[in-house]
């Protein structure tokens, strides 16, 4: 392998490592061997070959593809020929969408960024923006036109015709992705690959901060709830199994030793009495924290068969039980947050969160929900809007419960700044930083009662 190719490969690996993908030297060598076996002729094969040798989990694939496009672009510089104006681009885009021609969509994305995405004053452009390209091109407004075109060609007839709009929407979404990739490629040429790979590539979904995640990132996260729950359930089962090791059951050991002439060859361990852990969740569902509490509620609901009882309470400045809204089948994950805010009584005279009042009301109204078998999780950022944190109420709940944990989606350095009462609460109960799904998975796997 030539020095240039080797340097390109190691730069690529370094960029992936910077985003938290763990790649060892051995895997880099494997990747180089794969490159040697596959050659640079076919970019698609190269991509798959590198993915096979460098990645270990499917959720890193999106990150990998973005970085790959930067380090192994299909070409350099602007496309040949005149890009044409906006209207002709729109016409050709409509045709390509109707035909579902992927190669042509890719070509159009390249031309669109070149023609519509440039900004700045120097010859050529100072940069390229996918936002500006899509804002000028407005591919989403082509939906009706493409649909009518496809109906006319007979593609939309029959039963499958009713799926037509969704299919076109997916194609448009794909086109938007292509435009974003192309804009990144052009910018990287001007500003340096390494910098763009570090800054302009979104991390994997489970490492996005709950507090700053956008709508589509939250939707992506929701799709990971079921797999994550399944993994956690397996981990809990393993912990339960391990927990049965320990004391020897003398009676059953002696009974078992009869077949070996009274020599106890196989010690039998005492079975644990099946504990029936109960779970109570107190979730702050106000504005900024809601992404975090929604996700956690769904996760706990998906784990419900691991517990004898799960009860979920939501609050802003008043508290109400929402367990019923989370029931399986009824829970449409997308609208969960808005349904809770619509159907439960969460606010009193004002709309900002007040932990002191909510905790006090919980201790008073639902105190019976917490007993010696109950583990309580409080989810929220502990920002009380300068009102009394009501430490006595939390102390009371904590004393009654088996365990009480507080999961805070804010980064630890921010605790105690502004109106945050986090240090006061943290002095009473165990408070854990829980900024992203990755941390949440680790915490839940460790803290859940077995």
């Amino acid at each position, binding site marked *: 392998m030539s020095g240039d190719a080797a340097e390109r490969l190691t730069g690529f690996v370094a960029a992936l490592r910077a985003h938290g993908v*763990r790649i*060892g030297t*051995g*895997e880099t060598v*494997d990747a180089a*061997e*794969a490159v040697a*076996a*596959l050659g640079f002729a*076919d970019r*698609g*094969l190269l991509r*798959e*070959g590198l*993915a*096979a*040798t460098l*990645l*270990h*989990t*499917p959720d890193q*694939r999106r990150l990998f593809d973005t970085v790959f496009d930067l380090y192994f672009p299909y070409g350099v510089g602007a496309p040949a020929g005149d890009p044409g104006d906006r209207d002709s681009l729109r016409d050709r885009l409509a045709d390509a969408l109707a035909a579902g021609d992927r190669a042509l969509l890719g070509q159009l994305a390249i031309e669109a960024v070149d023609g519509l995405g440039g900004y700045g004053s120097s010859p050529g452009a100072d940069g390229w923006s996918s936002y500006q390209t899509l804002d000028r091109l407005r591919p989403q407004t082509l939906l009706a036109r493409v649909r009518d075109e496809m109906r006319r060609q007979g593609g939309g007839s*029959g*039963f*499958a015709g*009713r*799926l037509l709009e*969704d*299919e076109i929407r*997916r194609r448009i979404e794909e086109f938007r992705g292509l435009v974003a990739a192309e804009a990144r490629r052009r910018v990287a040429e001007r500003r340096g690959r390494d910098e763009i790979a570090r800054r302009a590539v979104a991390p994997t979904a489970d490492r996005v901060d709950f507090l700053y995640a956008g709508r589509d990132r939250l939707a992506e996260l*929701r*799709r990971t709830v*079921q*797999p994550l729950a*399944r*993994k956690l359930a*397996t*981990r809990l089962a*393993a912990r339960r199994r391990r927990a049965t090791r320990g004391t020897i059951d003398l009676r059953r050991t002696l009974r078992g030793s009869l077949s070996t002439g009274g020599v106890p060859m196989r010690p039998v361990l005492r079975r644990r009495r099946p504990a029936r852990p109960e779970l109570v969740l107190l979730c702050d569902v106000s504005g900024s924290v809601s992404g975090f509490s929604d996700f956690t509620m769904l996760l706990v609901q998906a784990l419900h068969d691991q517990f004898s009882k799960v009860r979920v309470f939501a609050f802003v400045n008043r508290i109400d039980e929402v367990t019923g809204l989370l029931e*399986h*089948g009824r829970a449409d*994950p*997308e609208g969960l947050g808005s349904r809770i805010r619509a159907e439960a009584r969460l606010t009193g005279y004002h709309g900002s969160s007040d932990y002191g009042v909510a905790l006090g009301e919980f201790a008073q109204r639902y105190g019976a929900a917490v007993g010696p078998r109950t583990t309580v999780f409080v989810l929220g950022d502990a920002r009380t809007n300068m009102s009394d944190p009501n430490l006595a109420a939390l102390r009371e709940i904590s004393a009654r419960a088996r365990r009480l944990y507080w999961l805070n989606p804010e980064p630890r350095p921010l605790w105690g700044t502004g109106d945050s009462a986090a240090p006061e609460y943290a002095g009473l109960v165990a408070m854990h930083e829980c900024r992203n799904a990755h941390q949440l998975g680790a915490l839940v796997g460790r803290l859940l009662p077995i």
Partner: protein
Amino acid sequence: MNKRLDMCSDLSVLDRSPEGPLFTSVDDVSARLAETGYLAAPAVATTVFLADRLGKPLLVEGPAGVGKTELAKAVAQVAGARLVRLQCYEGVDESRALYEWNHAKQLLRISAGRDETWDETRTDIFSEEFLLPRPLLTAIRGDEPTVLLIDETDKADVEVEGLLLEVLSDFQVTVPELGTITASRRPFVVLTSNATRELSEALRRRCLFLHLGFPDEELERRIVRLKVPGLDTALTESVVRVVAALRAMDLRKVPSVAETIDWARTLLALGATTLDETVVRDSLGVILKHQDDILKAGAKLDLDAV
């Protein structure tokens, strides 16, 4: 004692298969797999090619019913190799996966040879005659080409992964009484996993990783055409489109390729020529396995409008 030493020297170390690689190029992989009736996406063909070239095990992860196990079977058929299968389950252990001493036979041997010295007997009962090879050892010992399939690796306990490490990185098995047995010919190893549990980093590092997802519509049409040749072309097209739409929905269990083929077979058996509300509503249970999902899909496809 002689017997033991002989055996160890017999099992010489041979790196990589002496007969050369199985495949010449990625296209060769696709073409030959297609001959056996396995249509592989480019990603699959590339990874199989690399696994063969680099001599590394292949870890295939993905939802149920996308053809993970079938891939191993197809490779075995293409290579003219023997398929050795280790089905993992909770509680599978060394004696099920690797090897076991045949205790009953050893006891018989001891009681049969009464006038021998103890040393002779001891040497003899720990010889190969009394060894029961289990899948991992079988795959390593053979001289003919072998495909080793370790199925549903995620179902096995974590301890078994430790057992696999030696086999997968060096293709050797250590039997304390006999010494180390090294593969004379490296098997082509395929591990499958449904990702119910995170496999350990150490295991993943030793393998090439392939995520086998749902095929794109074009490939799925070809698969349906191949598996259910009697189905009308337009109907195949509709079936694949409806399944793709269902996969885009947020369902508890999305239909996979196996369900698509089942549905196509059902439609063929029902004698349907086009998809309409009645046919879809009656046969939706073939592709969706939860009542919630059926209700949700029904709403999406406007089935209850009738």
